[in-house]
């Protein structure tokens, strides 16, 4: 049983011992370093944190292929890919600042918790100076916050939510990918031409940051061309069965269904909407239509026949004809035997942009990298002239409006480019209300240590 004998002496002894034990680690002093994970050897490590399991695994694995290719090109292996067409010539194929680039990979599982654990182990155990990746805005925002805290650079991969460079923007985080606002701005004129200005839209929206901001953006831009929003319904992520959400669409009097879904969810909801016969219906004397604002090649392949004629938008597509795209598609194709996806492209470009910024700034210090990237104008990376805006760390470039191909000739050209929306049309001020308004701020760059 318990024998409570608290004596003064006993207590003193215990607390002295504990105190000494706790004080011990503070005796050691660390080697002073200007920033987190300052690479001292002949190599530098970067981390690729992508979903390798779970619903976005396909996107993640394609990103990983592109990242490996980027590292090979930076180290001077292979044919150099986009390094040959990139407008900045700072990189010479000898690694970054003379250090050979090594990489570690992690699995985000498309879960914020797992992604942060994996990113933390990269930072603390593998001592990476930069993390690239993320195939979900929830994950990207979570990892971006972590990198800001730890004092390393986060180069976002596939993340389309306005919040990533909106109200959750961070000084250490950078996004090359386009966002929901840009999708809305690019799609609206095309939709107006195709379907007219007298339409009634019904939104089904994935219930998290990306879905919310995309819905907000699309509602605003379609109402801007005279459409009416009948209803907006949030659906749980990974629901699998959307029939209970699709059935009410028919009786609502809507004649356009906007699916703010991604990945497996979009494949399921689109397939079920088509099975319900929505696209064969005539409502208000007009043909019923479906719009999928954010497309990807892998989703298009998954949805198969159902995607024919459905409008959407993309950041980049391998069918573009500029020389940067051609160089990238060639070296990716030679190595992996398939064209790269939209998300693979953005991760590849982000890795090159990071390496270039370190070289131009002359240091791996996140603050120097940030300075080199802010308001940086470049070309030759597949999207035409591009600006990395300093105020919110968002890239501005042309946006592609896509349509499901009517007659695909092979398994990779399931989508066709309808229009290349010029950059001027998708620009917005950095204090736009959809991006956190005047309150949103990057904070200050954090070099850690």
């Amino acid at each position, binding site marked *: 049983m318990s024998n409570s004998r608290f004596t003064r002496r006993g207590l003193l002894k215990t607390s002295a011992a504990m105190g000494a034990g706790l004080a011990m680690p503070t005796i050691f002093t660390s080697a002073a370093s200007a920033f987190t994970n300052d690479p001292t050897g002949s190599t530098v490590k970067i981390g690729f944190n992508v979903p390798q399991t779970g619903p976005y695994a396909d996107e993640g694995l394609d990103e990983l292929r592109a990242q490996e290719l980027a590292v090979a090109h930076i180290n001077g292996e292979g044919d150099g890919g986009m390094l040959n067409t990139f407008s900045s010539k700072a990189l010479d194929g000898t690694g970054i600042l003379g250090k050979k680039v090594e990489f570690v990979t992690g699995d985000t599982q498309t879960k914020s918790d797992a992604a942060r654990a994996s990113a933390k182990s990269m930072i603390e155990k593998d001592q990476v100076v930069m993390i690239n990746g993320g195939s979900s805005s*929830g994950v990207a925002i*979570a990892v971006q916050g972590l990198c800001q805290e730890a004092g390393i650079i986060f180069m976002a991969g596939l993340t389309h939510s306005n919040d990533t460079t909106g109200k959750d923007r961070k000084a250490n985080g950078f996004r090359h990918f386009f966002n929901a606002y840009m999708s809305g701005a690019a799609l609206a004129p095309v939709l107006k031409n195709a379907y007219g200005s007298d339409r009634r839209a019904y939104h089904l929206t994935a219930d998290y940051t990306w879905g919310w901001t995309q819905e907000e953006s699309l509602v605003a831009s379609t109402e801007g061309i005279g459409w009416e929003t009948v209803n907006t319904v949030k659906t*749980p992520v990974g629901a699998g069965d959307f029939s209970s959400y699709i059935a009410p669409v028919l009786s609502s009097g809507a004649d356009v269904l906007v699916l703010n879904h991604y990945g497996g969810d979009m494949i399921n909801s689109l397939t079920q909407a088509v099975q319900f016969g929505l696209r064969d219906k005539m409502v208000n004397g007009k043909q019923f239509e479906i719009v999928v604002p954010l497309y990807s090649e892998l989703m298009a392949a998954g949805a198969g026949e159902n995607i024919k004629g459905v409008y959407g938008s993309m950041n980049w597509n391998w069918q573009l004809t500029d020389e940067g795209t051609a160089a990238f598609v060639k070296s990716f194709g030679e190595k992996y035997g398939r064209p790269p996806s939209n998300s693979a492209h953005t991760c590849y470009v982000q890795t090159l942009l990071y390496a270039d910024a370190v070289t131009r700034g002359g240091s791996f210090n996140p603050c120097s990298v940030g300075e080199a990237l802010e308001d940086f104008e470049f070309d030759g990376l597949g999207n035409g002239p591009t600006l990395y805006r300093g105020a919110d760390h968002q890239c501005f470039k042309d946006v592609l409006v896509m349509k499901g191909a009517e007659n695909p000739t092979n398994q990779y050209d399931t989508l066709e480019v309808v229009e290349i929306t010029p950059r001027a049309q998708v620009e917005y001020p950095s204090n736009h209300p959809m991006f956190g308004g005047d309150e949103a701020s990057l904070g200050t760059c954090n070099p850690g240590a």
Partner: protein
Amino acid sequence: MLGLNRKDTTFLIIVVLLTLFTPFLMQPFSEGSAMAQFNGGYPDLMAKVAIFGIFAMGFNILFGLTGYLSFGHAAFLGVGSYSAVWMFKLLTLNVFPAIILAVIIGGVFSLVIGYISLRRSGIYFSILTLAMAEMSYRLAYSVLTPITNGETGLQVRATDPRIFDGEGAADYPNLFGLELSTSQKWEVLGHVFTFNVGYYFCALIAIVMFYLSMRIFRSPFGLILRATKSNQQRLSYTGLSTRPYALAAFVISGMYAGLAGGLLAAMDPLAGAERMVWTASGEVVIMTILGGAGTLLGPVLGAGAIKYLENIFSKINENVLHEWFHFMPEWLADPIVFILSRFTGEGWHLTLGLMFMAVVIFLPGGLIEGGQRIANRFRKKPPEDDDAEHHPKAAPHVAE
């Protein structure tokens, strides 16, 4: 000392020393050596081991002592995290209010769930707790989105009110200004040891919690809990109502879980609903059984083993394996890598499953029993008495 007998005091001191020297113990290989892959002495992993150790210790007070198998403990971990992050957002980034609220909310939540679930025992109790936890998880994902921020997860923002934090207060979770992420590195003989404030904070709390659970194990209250496990009916016949005792154990373990959730949020200020999903509840059951249910140190060992596997084994992907077997001819290396890669990287769950099966079949008392068997082999004991009938029975199998 501290109300413990000599044996327990020694035990406690050993645990304290083990905890303090974890940064050395988990970092046995020098940097750059081929084995550096297996080093686990980085702050995030060490802190996770301490935190999940607390979680499993609490679970063990319920499962190890009363035998009530709860399949919903992750719910308390989750609400602990959410309440801690809300404290960060509303009051201050100092961790104390956050952790205190996490424990209180964990306790209140477990009181409600425990009151309902403990009306049944055995498998029905397990199912009820599982249902409650799954319900909490679904709620966090759907109708409670304004509180939990749904799939995105609850995070600290620069625009949060944080009414107790003045100008110039630390921007990250801290102990009265000392940030938990502060680390000291000590490089010696090619080894790099990291001493992290957050880890030592978690470790200190883990030691206090270990002491508390030791006192509970040795108390009359603990004895009644054990009696509940061995024969609840007989205990009722003696005129003792067991339900209040079981409920108390349930609430205590819920508070342990809330504390663990609060610490998780303190180490990394983000709370996501995935923490409450039923596999997370299953994980703590596995931790406890793997280490040894009903023993003091077992659950902590189990938590350490699982977190180590999860973080280290899952990083050994095919590329790493190919590097290891580089010296072999390709026709030999490829099949070996193919087979091994099923058990490492994404396949680490398979390794865990096999380990769990082996432990349950061959070491019903968990890793602790393994340690005891090894110790007994070296300790020269008098030969066992054959008169089995007059001996106390061996501890029953955990699954019984």
